[in-house]
């Protein structure tokens, strides 16, 4: 019984961080129809910036609780710098090209960013472990968990709720939904599609960096982290249905639970269990669980 509880809790914690990364990926795809391969590198960038800043913060002997603000701040900083740079500097020249060409464009960005990260931070690992233990432990189902993990779950839920509210309740959100529905008609109705794209990509970048910044205290920050996470995030959004917000949430929960169950009960299959689930979902529902039917183009 305790085993099952810990599988569930581990799975939920893992899903919440997957969700934060995947929701940015799905948002960018939904609005811009770009499957952003560089998302993993932006996540790594967030982790590196957070690790560096938090390290400096604690070396300076400042109030330890300030480091939480620093994590959020590094995500915002990465989003505001890298997002506009990539969108304005490159992607806007590519709009209207084939989806698969756009995948290759972002794959190039991914390759470039991977080396930029190594050039700035080198190949050794960084860690920002301090915030992780700061809030102490909590007893869940007879097992100790850090409060940080619980907070991670809350942050993920907040991100999901906030995004849903913005999309459905605000004017900007409704404009965004209109662009998702039909880009050309939206432009004809006077919506500044270019600006919607710009804001979406920046927001997506911020979410990727937030995922990285939040995971930085939990793991050691190493060069390969972006390469690993991007295929995981793909699995999440493909399972849920590309471009769907609830889909990303469901996909994250499925992947998180499958992985933690595999880790606990059958460690040999840990790596490929996720892709197996993804393949099975795609076989049953070719466009993911939360997909809508698409007209066949002639």
């Amino acid at each position, binding site marked *: 019984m305790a085993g099952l509880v810990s599988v569930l809790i581990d799975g939920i914690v893992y899903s919440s961080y997957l969700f934060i990364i995947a929701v940015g990926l799905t948002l960018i795809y939904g609005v811009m129809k770009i*499957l952003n391969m560089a998302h993993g590198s932006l996540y790594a960038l967030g982790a590196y910036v957070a690790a560096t800043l938090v390290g400096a913060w604690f070396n300076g002997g400042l109030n330890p609780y300030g480091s939480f603000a620093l994590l959020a701040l590094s995500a915002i900083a990465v989003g505001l710098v890298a997002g506009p740079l990539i969108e304005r500097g*490159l992607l806007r*020249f590519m709009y209207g090209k084939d*989806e*698969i*060409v756009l*995948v*290759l*464009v972002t*794959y*190039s*960005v*991914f*390759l*470039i960013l*991977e*080396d*930029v990260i*190594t*050039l700035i931070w080198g*190949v050794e690992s960084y860690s920002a472990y301090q915030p992780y233990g700061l809030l102490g432990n909590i007893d869940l189902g007879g097992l100790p968990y850090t409060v940080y993990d619980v907070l991670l779950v809350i942050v993920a839920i907040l991100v999901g709720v906030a995004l849903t509210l913005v999309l459905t309740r605000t004017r900007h959100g409704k404009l965004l939904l209109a662009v998702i529905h039909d880009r050309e008609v939206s432009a004809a109705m006077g919506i500044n599609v270019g600006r919607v794209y710009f804001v979406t990509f920046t927001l997506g970048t911020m979410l990727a960096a937030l995922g990285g910044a939040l995971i930085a205290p939990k793991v050691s920050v190493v060069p390969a982290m972006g*390469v690993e996470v991007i*295929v995981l995030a*793909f*699995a999440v959004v*493909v399972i849920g249905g*590309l471009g769907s917000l609830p889909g990303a949430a469901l996909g994250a929960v499925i992947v998180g639970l499958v992985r933690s169950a595999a880790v606990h009960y059958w460690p*040999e*299959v*840990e*790596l*490929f*269990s996720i*892709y*197996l689930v*993804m*393949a099975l979902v*795609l*076989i049953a529902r*070719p*466009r993911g669980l939360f997909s809508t039917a698409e007209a*066949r183009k*002639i």
Partner: protein
Amino acid sequence: MKLNRALALAALIAVVLVGGRWLPGWAQSLMILALGKGLVVLGLLLLMRCGLVSFGQGLYYALGAYAAVSMTRIAGLPETLLSSDAVVMPLAGGLVAGVIAFVLGVLLAAYRGIFFAMLSLAFSMILYGLLIKSSLLGSSDGFNIAFTSAAGFPLPAGSHLYALFVVTVVLVALALYGTHRFLRSHTGRLGPAIRDNELRVEYMGASVRRLVHLNYVLAAVLSGIGGGLVALSIRHIDPDLAYWTTSGEFVFVAILSGTGNVIAPFLGSLVFEWIKSIAYQYTPYTWQLVLGTAMLLVIMFLPSGLWSLFTRRRKGA
């Protein structure tokens, strides 16, 4: 004209084979590597002509490398031609890749665009996950492989590299000829038609699904043979062969070469391996940066790949 071309090709192969004897060892290795990977890219060319990009060709590349030795190991057989012959091993790899592709192709043939790319990526990652955990096949370290004969003839010491070189050139030449004939055939010509408009192909009475399936299997067979050759050249295999970045590299070379001609993948692959070996030597940490920038430039200014440089000039003249 046609006869002249065939003669020119035969002469080229003869020159490469004879000339290869005097090439330094590193150059022979580089050629084997480039030609072997060129086979994988040739497979991608077949798919790209149908408008499909696979981010999972590493699956068949790795299968081709692993197949022969793994079958011997798993079955616990003694050493036979299957695990020690430079001709049998790559061909067995191609066969296994083809069989697996036939099974997976039943599913994949219904997918297009990024869903095709993602599902093929998932399949290759499943193999990666399997390989990295299977202690019989060396887990994440992989294992060393060696060959002692070519087409049944035992090889004297010191002749292994050149023997593999000859095997590679001959297999690649056969693959080139076969692919060329396929692309000229009725079935082969339907590929670009699928890319342009599937529905019209269906109206003409051809089964798009079956065509995609066929191209997918052919691409896998080519990748399998390529993987087998590369493995014999490096003499070591590990699960990274199936990792998605390996597949990404093939897509990169395919974009670089373009789909204009069956020779293009091999030229692209040769250029790629050559630049890679230089870049690794001088700037190991900016190698991917160069790669990414080059790919962006090609996508922006040469959307039909390096091969279009030749055709464009020919038209202008």
